[in-house]
């Protein structure tokens, strides 16, 4: 029997079981023995990846940042083998009510800014870094944080939805969202047409990646990566899994678009340089 490749994933939704069970049998049919472990939050998954308890981690961008820091501190090397087409070149936006007399990030001084959960890269860390870059420190605004699904690194959309609702209800002057949520909320009526305006937008950044642990069998992981990248949306045995996981195509992993998030983590002390948890009020 060939060696089993053990993958970690965070159970941010019950469908995660369906997804990885599906991938597991898809790989089994192609002769690769994949199994998975589910975590209730990313921090333990990252720690286990570094400790060699799992070979692969389906990591959020923030989890990747922490894994990299932990690895560097221990003199270990990490790499990534794949990411979704939908993980590339995302942006976050800060939106205000359409009629508000707010036209630049600086106008938000002294105003209430609604964000997602404390550990959401897209709805908290990156938009707040954008504000900082424009000279607006977190202490210059009233932060209204919606800590839904803490530990899931923003995978749970609930915090963003609450932030959007707060903006609409006048409890906040601005809300931080990922671009896909702005589109979704515009289409599902959470943010009625023409009710909000984009005040600022981040530079493009990358999202999740399939991180490889330091102890993983290189050849086996490469084979896993090749199979993953061979999954075709035209193949009806693969398509339902791709649909569930939200992609059309797996692409090679790349790690050069995480700099903005890494900077945000450093500036806020969310993680320390050696990868230990730094944010006082972060309780995954």
């Amino acid at each position, binding site marked *: 029997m060939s060696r089993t490749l053990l993958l970690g994933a965070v159970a941010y939704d019950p469908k995660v079981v369906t997804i990885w069970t599906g991938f597991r049998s898809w790989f089994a049919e192609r002769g690769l023995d994949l199994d998975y472990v589910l975590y209730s939050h990313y921090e333990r998954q990252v720690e286990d990846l570094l400790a060699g308890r799992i070979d692969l981690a389906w990591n959020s961008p923030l989890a990747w940042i922490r894994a990299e820091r932990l690895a560097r501190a221990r003199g270990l090397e990490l790499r990534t083998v794949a990411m979704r*087409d*939908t993980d*590339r*070149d*995302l*942006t976050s*936006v800060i939106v205000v009510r359409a009629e508000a007399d707010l036209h630049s990030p600086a106008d938000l001084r002294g105003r209430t800014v609604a964000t997602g959960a404390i550990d959401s890269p897209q709805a908290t860390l990156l938009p707040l870094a954008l504000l900082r870059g424009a000279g607006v420190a977190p202490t210059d605004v009233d932060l209204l944080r919606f800590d839904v699904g803490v530990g899931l690194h923003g995978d749970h959309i609930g915090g963003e939805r609450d932030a959007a609702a707060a903006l609409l209800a006048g409890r906040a002057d601005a809300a931080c969202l990922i*671009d*896909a949520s*702005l*589109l979704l909320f*515009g*289409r599902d009526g959470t*943010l*009625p*047409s*023409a009710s909000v*305006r*984009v005040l600022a*937008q981040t530079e*493009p950044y990358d999202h999740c990646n399939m991180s490889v642990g330091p102890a993983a069998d290189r050849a086996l992981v490469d084979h896993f990566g090749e199979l993953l990248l061979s999954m*075709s*949306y*035209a193949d*009806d*045995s693969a*398509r*339902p899994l791709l649909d569930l996981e*939200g992609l*059309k*195509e797996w692409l090679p992993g790349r790690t050069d678009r995480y700099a903005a998030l890494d900077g945000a983590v450093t500036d806020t002390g969310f993680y320390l340089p050696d990868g230990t948890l730094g944010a006082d009020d972060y309780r995954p």
Partner: protein
Amino acid sequence: MPTTIDLESLGFDNGGHLLVDRALAGLDPGERLVVRGRHPALGVHLAAWCRAEGHRLDPDAAAPTIVRGSADRDRWRGAPRAGRTAADVVPRASREWGLAARSALVEPGGPALSVDWVDRDLVWADIAPQLYAQATANQWDPATAVDWTAAGSVPDDVEDAVVQVMTFLVENEQAALMIPARLLSRLHPHYREVMQLLAAQAADEARHLEVFTRRGLMHRDRLGLSGAGGRASLQTLLEEPDFTLASFLLSVLGEGSFLDLLHFLHRHAPDRVTADVTRLAARDEARHVAFGVAHTAHVVRADPGFLHRLRTAVERRHAALADTAGLNKQVFDALVVLAAGSWEPAAIARGWQDVLRLQQAMDSGRRRRLEYIGFPDDEAAALSALHTRNFM
């Protein structure tokens, strides 16, 4: 010059993707579409939308430019049609079509349908669409189709006979309701006219149940006797697992005989309500018989060897019922009383002769149908004689 579309002020929060999708439909993967528009969030929306749909937004283009992806086409690559039309049903329907409507384009990858019968020649009859149209046109409302106020006065000892016969009819209708309901749930919906016809048949039987029960209880507060032999006979019909054999035993032989019984009851009805309910039920039953005969004949035409299985089914049912009483004595006697109309000896003699003639009529009807299906006349006679004494 790339294709260009102008959304004017339409945003993706107001259906803008419809126009973009429509414009992309005419392009091949890799081709470019320039999207113009005045919606303030157009750029943000477009980027997020393209990412989700498997298109790419060219980061270097001056105006928002989509590079068309192929995911939407990939989804439908190799998608089959779920057959053709009613006039042209396929010999074998695919379980992979699932619940897709006939002739629809079926996206591959959905759950397969768990049904037993997927072969046309095991369930079909060319007349099914017409019979279904007839069935829907002839649905009647028990509340208004029968004049329930025309109760009339029936002598007590004749009313006893009516109640006993209605008790028997209800029992039969219950079996006749359950069988098509069971069959239709195991059928591939590609043969939907058969499914619809069976559904209409079940609805017919539901009405029959109602009107016979109502007539039985018109002057009484409870129904009559239920003989064990009659119930055993009906139950052998419920236990037949094969579509064609079930249809043959129930509709050709059973409901065929039942049809004569309903005509007989109509003729000898002691009151208007009895006459009405048996007439209305007989009209429906004729349709049930027509499908059973047409379907069984269709199967035999496709496979003459099937005659052997039909014969075996009749013999097996006969053997299973050999030790039972068949029709219960009370029902038979009640039919005589109804035909007699009174307990006068001369009337009873007439009634007795009428019931004998009824049995002969049932026999010749069965033989006629068996011959139509393809049995030689001597075999048709022999098989008809093996039919249950319980009529159905």
